[in-house]
């Protein structure tokens, strides 16, 4: 019996693989091969060309950019096995997933869990099609690590809320269509006075100001709300449930910051190979500077065990059907290693690794300098390293609250 089932599974998997291959042959244009960005829509403005748009529509139309999400809301409705087939077949021909951004990584999974039917039908399909870009209204000037201290207030006006206050570090706020925000609906209770609501970024009273960072770029914004009307149907869950929903969303965020794709991509080239271009090597091809060589090996060994840890977290989550406790260390470890790597890259390249602009510097050199600077944010946002340590100590290790 088991054998029969297995062979049925095999047959359907083979059929699905064929379907994916045919889809790629028909829809994936050669000129996009090995281009694109899994996170399209998070870090920059939309300037899609018609070919990219067509590819996004093809993938989004099938729900294959969000393969495991339910079909009734525009997702693929696929199994994990089928999802792996999609990933594998896409990777084989150098095709990227054009559906991404905060809607996919954070907001969508949270709304699927806490949203009502009407909200899911309204908001999930455009995310699956890559049409609507979401930003996150969480941090405030006085609510960073102490996020629950947020003061942006939504006053109950009968059929709507009137929202006043300021959010900050709004990633991609200047390009977003909508914002999922946690706001205060009750000043008498720090945690239970928070609600989760959805705000249109083009609503009257919303003002977005990009913040220039030490890296020279402006991926974050300040967002001001002045008497912004938010219809009651944009409340997710119940009033006062925002802290619970908001924290759930942060779990998705952490998994994405550390989890893998993004950092793994950054760490593409071996530091040793880069060092061999900038530093003296001996007859055997080894770096002559043994101290530097040791530093590189040390970092790469730790980086390798981080990748193994990320993989283990995924395997354990699948096997246990829940988030593995080791996922709590991924953000902390991954961001630290990425910062260490950026610093080491500067040591390897010397002054050539500190260029701000100019044709004398390679694109990779300039990008890495900006990445080094911007990377300092990684141990601050999404719950700083110190907050992560508190979480590990209390939730995982069961150490008592110090407060």
């Amino acid at each position, binding site marked *: 019996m088991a054998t029969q089932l297995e062979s049925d599974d095999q047959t359907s998997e083979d059929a699905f693989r064929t379907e994916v291959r045919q889809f790629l042959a028909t829809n994936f244009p050669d000129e996009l091969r090995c281009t694109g960005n899994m996170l399209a829509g998070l870090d920059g403005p939309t300037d899609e060309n018609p070919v990219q748009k067509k590819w996004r529509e093809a993938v989004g139309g099938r729900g294959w950019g969000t393969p495991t999400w339910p079909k009734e809301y525009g997702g693929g409705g696929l199994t994990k096995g089928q999802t792996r087939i999609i990933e594998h077949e896409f990777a084989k021909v150098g095709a990227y997933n054009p559906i991404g951004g905060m809607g996919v990584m954070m907001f969508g999974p949270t709304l699927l869990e806490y949203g009502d039917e009407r909200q899911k039908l309204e908001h999930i399909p455009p995310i699956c099609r890559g049409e609507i870009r979401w930003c996150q209204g969480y941090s405030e000037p006085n609510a960073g690590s102490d996020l629950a201290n947020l003061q942006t207030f939504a006053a109950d006006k009968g059929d709507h809320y009137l929202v006043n206050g300021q959010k900050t570090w709004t990633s991609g706020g200047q390009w977003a269509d909508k914002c999922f925000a946690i706001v205060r609906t009750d000043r008498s209770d720090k945690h239970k006075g928070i609600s989760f609501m959805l705000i249109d970024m083009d609503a009257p009273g919303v003002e977005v100001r990009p913040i220039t960072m030490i890296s020279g770029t402006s991926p974050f914004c300040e967002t001001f709300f002045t008497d912004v009307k938010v219809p009651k149907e944009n409340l997710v869950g119940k009033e006062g449930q925002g802290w619970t929903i908001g924290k759930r969303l942060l779990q998705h965020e952490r998994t994405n910051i550390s989890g893998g794709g993004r950092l793994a991509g950054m760490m593409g080239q071996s530091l040793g190979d880069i060092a061999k271009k900038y530093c003296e090597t001996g007859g055997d091809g080894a770096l002559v500077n043994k101290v530097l060589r040791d530093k590189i090996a040390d970092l790469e060994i730790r980086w390798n065990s981080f990748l193994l840890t990320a993989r283990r977290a995924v395997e*354990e989550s699948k096997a246990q059907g829940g988030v593995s406790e080791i996922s709590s260390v991924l953000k902390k470890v991954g961001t630290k290693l990425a910062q260490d790597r950026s610093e080491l890259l500067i040591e390897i390249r010397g002054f050539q690794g500190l260029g701000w602009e100019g044709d004398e510097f390679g694109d990779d050199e300039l990008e890495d300098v900006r990445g080094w600077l911007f990377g300092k944010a990684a141990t601050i946002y999404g719950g700083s390293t110190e907050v992560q340590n508190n979480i590990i100590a209390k939730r995982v290790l069961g*150490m008592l609250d110090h407060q």
Partner: protein
Amino acid sequence: MAVLSEEQEMLRNMARDWATKESPVAEFRKVRAAGQPQAYNAYAYAAMAEMGWAGIIIPEAHGGSDFGFLSAGLVVEELGKTLTASPLVATTIAASAILLGGSDEQKAKWLPRLASGETVATLAVEEGTHCDTSAIETSVSGGKLTGKKAFVHEAHGASLFVVAAKDGLYLVEKGDGVSLTTRKLTDQRSHADIQFAGAAAEKLEGGGDSLLGDVLDRARVLSAAEMLGMAQAVFDTTLDYLKQRVQFNQVLATFQALQHRMADLFADLTQMRSAVEAGLQAVDSGFGVARAATIAKAEANRVLHAISNQGIQLHGGIGMTDEFNVGFYLKRARVLEASWGSSSYLKDRFARLSGY
């Protein structure tokens, strides 16, 4: 923890149960007090062999269970947690050498004896104070092996040695031409320098040029598994202690400085477990073994070093006493860190394997 099969879970649970009940650290204290050079309880090793643990990597045809290195590592990890003194790791390493390089006759002769626990075997490679396979002087002429091996693990209990000579690995039985000088190290386990003076030796002809390196990689992942168990035990014990000890009218576990240090160590331990399990799995799959084993042992060295030091520091004064177990882990830790490649050796090897 890697995702395990049902058999592997049973094996691990059995090992955990046995180590906790039959072989707590108190048993190691007894071994130490007895002062015998072989430094393990022969009855305990017989019981372990009886449960099939000495044959985990040995094929069924030769009396083993053929469960592989990840399974062997699970058992070794549990034994490491309680500092169980036994020649299990040494014998498993020696078995791997015979499996990789032995003839059918050699396998048929030795593997069943190793699996049953009847014969204890060990690997003898180093001739100096550090892991250095390029400095091997031991040579063989007319089937007679001559040379000096240093700091051989489990040398006293072993009756079979897998010896690295200039031109390959040889099997040498304890007997004529083999003399031991005991070297007492901090871990109070069995170590000896061995003088081979024309001892009868039989070459392991198979396995190719990389045989010694391949065996050392297996030694690295198995030792790393023992170290993983030790690191986990020190971490758990220290965490328990912090939750009990009161100073300034406060349980130590409520101090944020200590919470964050434990969070750092937890992250390190998580990294170590991933690396060690991946090393064991690499041996089972045969893919990327050298690299994975180097990463596994390098991470085991780094993390156990840190945790064994912090274990003492966080226990405070009582951590310095012989009455508390945490010091035993520190002393065993450094011996294993030095075995089959120190941290600097492994980083150098990683760089070489990576082409820089």
